[in-house]
Structure formats: structure tokens, C-alpha cells
């Protein structure tokens, strides 16, 4: 046992001794498995990696909780873990050399076409209804954008972050963990791995409706307009 300082009172040595004798605490089985599983993998294997994590039980959580009203509460710790695995698996690979054009399109299809060029598409994965797009920032750093159907339940985001507005988009951010929740049309997007203050352009790209969503909305509006036009006697488009 190491000795307490000479200025301490005798009773302090007793307390010190008790604490010094506390045993180490072991993590639950499997908790460190993802961290110590350092098989070299490149971006194209991210999906495999995510499946492996699920098998280990570390990331068995789907990553979102769906409420009865259809709103979504992201499980941020699970998503952060998934992001860590993806970032690690990128390693030193140049993502631009790894992904083919179809894969790049698939990544951008998850987030939208307006992603800034500094975010290099690096991989994607889908499990259940949760889609993950991974972007390479260089120097071994990456950003993940998780997207799932349903608007975010802002009231259930927890106290580790706060709601704010970034370039007109309402978001919830946990700056410490570099996690930002964004409503992307009718979807919820969670950006992991970048400070929201440094990612206003990415947030804007995520918040903007994707072309498919825009078309869907236009179809919806047209259909509603068509239903309304009849009863009110407006001419309907041919």
C-alpha cells in the first residue's frame, strides 16, 4: 500500500488503506470485444463488421427505439459504438479508391446528394430499418450518418445534449460526444463523429429532403390537391 502524504491525519491512513485495497473491476464479458477485435478491414467490409458486432452482443441493440406514435428515439450509445467500429475499420485505406461508383451512390442515397466534397463516401450498411453511411475525413477519422424512418422524439433525447438551430435546421446535439440528431424530412438522422459547429454544411445536407423524398412529397401534394379539386369544382390536371 502506498502511504498517504505526511500532512495527513492518522485516520486518513485508515480510509486510504480501505480504498487502496479495493479490487479491480472487470468489464462485462464482451464489452471490450469490439475494441480488441482489430482485424484489418477496409471500407467495403463495414457491413460484415457490423454484423460481427451484433453477433458479439456489443451492438445487439438496433440503435433506435420506435414509439407508438411513430416517433424515433435514437439509442445514442449503440450508434456511437457502431460508428467507432466503422471508423476503426477504415484504417488507413483511401476510401475513394475502395468504393465503386455504385457503392458511392448508395452512400449518398442514404444521406442525400448535397454532402460536401470534404466528406468522402467510404461505406454503408443496413440492418433492419437502420441505414448507416460512413464518410472518410482523412487521417483515420470518419463520420457516420445513421438514418431511420420516423421523426425524432425531441423530448426523449436525454439531458446530455441540447436542442439548437444550425443554419436553419433544428437539431439536438451532444457536443461532448460529437453526436447530432437531425430531422431529415420524415426521417431521423444521427450524425456521429464530428462537432456540429464544424459540420453545418453536412447538417444542412442531411436535413434537406432527398430527391426521392421530394418526389414522394410532390406526389402526395398532387394527390391531395386532386382529391380537393373535385369537391370544390376546380379543374383537375390531365
Amino acid at each position, binding site marked *: 500500500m502506498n502511504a498517504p502524504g505526511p500532512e495527513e491525519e492518522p485516520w486518513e491512513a485508515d480510509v486510504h488503506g480501505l480504498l487502496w485495497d479495493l479490487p479491480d473491476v472487470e468489464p462485462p464479458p464482451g464489452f471490450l470485444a469490439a475494441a480488441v477485435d482489430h482485424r484489418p478491414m477496409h471500407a467495403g467490409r463495414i457491413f460484415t463488421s457490423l454484423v460481427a458486432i451484433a453477433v458479439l452482443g456489443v451492438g445487439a441493440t438496433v440503435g433506435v427505439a420506435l414509439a407508438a406514435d411513430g416517433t424515433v428515439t435514437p439509442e445514442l450509445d449503440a450508434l456511437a459504438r457502431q460508428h467507432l467500429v466503422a*471508423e476503426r475499420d477504415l484504417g488507413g485505406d483511401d476510401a475513394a479508391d475502395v468504393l465503386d461508383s455504385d457503392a458511392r451512390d448508395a452512400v449518398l442515397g442514404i444521406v442525400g446528394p448535397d454532402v460536401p466534397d470534404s466528406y468522402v463516401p467510404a461505406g454503408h450498411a443496413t440492418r433492419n430499418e437502420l441505414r448507416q453511411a460512413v464518410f472518410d475525413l482523412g487521417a483515420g477519422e470518419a463520420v457516420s450518418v445513421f438514418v431511420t424512418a420516423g421523426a425524432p422524439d425531441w423530448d426523449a433525447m436525454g439531458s446530455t445534449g441540447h436542442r439548437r438551430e444550425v443554419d436553419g435546421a433544428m437539431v439536438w446535439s451532444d457536443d461532448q460526444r460529437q453526436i447530432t440528431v437531425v430531422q431529415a424530412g420524415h426521417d431521423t438522422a444521427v450524425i456521429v463523429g464530428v462537432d456540429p459547429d464544424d459540420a453545418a454544411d453536412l447538417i444542412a445536407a442531411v436535413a434537406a429532403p432527398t430527391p426521392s423524398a421530394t418526389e414522394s412529397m410532390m406526389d402526395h401534394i398532387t394527390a391531395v390537391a386532386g382529391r380537393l379539386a373535385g369537391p370544390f369544382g376546380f379543374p383537375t390536371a390531365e
Partner: protein
Amino acid sequence: MVGTADSPAQDGPAVTDADPTTVPTWEEVAEQYGRFLYSLAYRLTGNHQDAQDLVQEVLLRVRRGLAGYQPGNFKGWLSRITTNTFLDRVRKQNRRPTVALPEDPDRVLAGSPGADVELAARDLPDHLQDLLSDLQPEYRAAVVLADVLGYSYEEIADILDVPLGTVRSRIHRGRGRLRTALAS
């Protein structure tokens, strides 16, 4: 500077680095220091769920900080990240007004004048962990660094970035509260 200091422990293996001149990779950190991080995180948070969350966040910070790390006392560097991350989380979670730390050191020992701590009569260590978890986070961090990990006051002042006198008083008061709780 903790990141370049020598190992702080007088005889405690928990804070000695195997090779202080090399910088491990992030994978090696998780593999070689994961249990150290987890044990420290558990002593700070008092439960497994919060310990897991804390370790995850610490690993994120370590991942980003390794590029700028200068070889030295690596466990000291990890301890600094872990305790500061813990205190950051506590501050963010405590939206309610915080209770100011008492200025009067005698308050710690109020109600237990001359009481001897019946050390052997308790169901340690779980009971002790519960009492540790009841300490204010700032006291708890200082006491854990001093009495669980064996850091010197000077090193703790560096880790927590507070004056030496503050470290001394936090440890003294933290121990005093533990003593009172143990004796009650």
C-alpha cells in the same frame, strides 16, 4: 504535465506504464488498458452502465488524442481523460443548480468527533463503493485518484487542473465524509 511525467505510483502497479517511451495504437489502448479504464470508470461512476458509457466516450477521446500525445506517463494521460470526461458528463447531466463545495473543512468531520472507524466490520468493498458514489463528484475524483490509483497530490492537481490546495482539501474532505459514513 501528466502526459510526460514519470509514473506516479510509489508501489501501486495500477499506474505504472510498461514502456513509457512508446505510444500505443488505439487498438492497443483498448486491448491493454481497457480493464484499467473500466475499473477506474466504475470507481468514478459507481455502476456498470455508466462505466460502460464513460469508457466508450473515453475511447473516443483517446482515439482523437493519440496523434498529439507525447510519450510519457500513458496511464496518467488516460486517467486525466477519464476523470475529466467523467466530470464533464456529471456537469452536463446536472441541469439543476450545483451545490457549492463547502469552504469549511471542519464540516466534514461534524458529528463524528473522535469516532474510530470500525474498518473490519463492514461488508466491503461494495459498501465502500456505495459510500464512494455518494461523494460529490469532485471529491470522488480526487479520492479515487489518490487512494485507488495512488497518484501524488501534485499529479492530481495536474490531472484535474486545480490548485494543489484544492486537491488537498478535496481529498481530506472526501476521506472525512467516508470516515463519517463508515462510522455511522
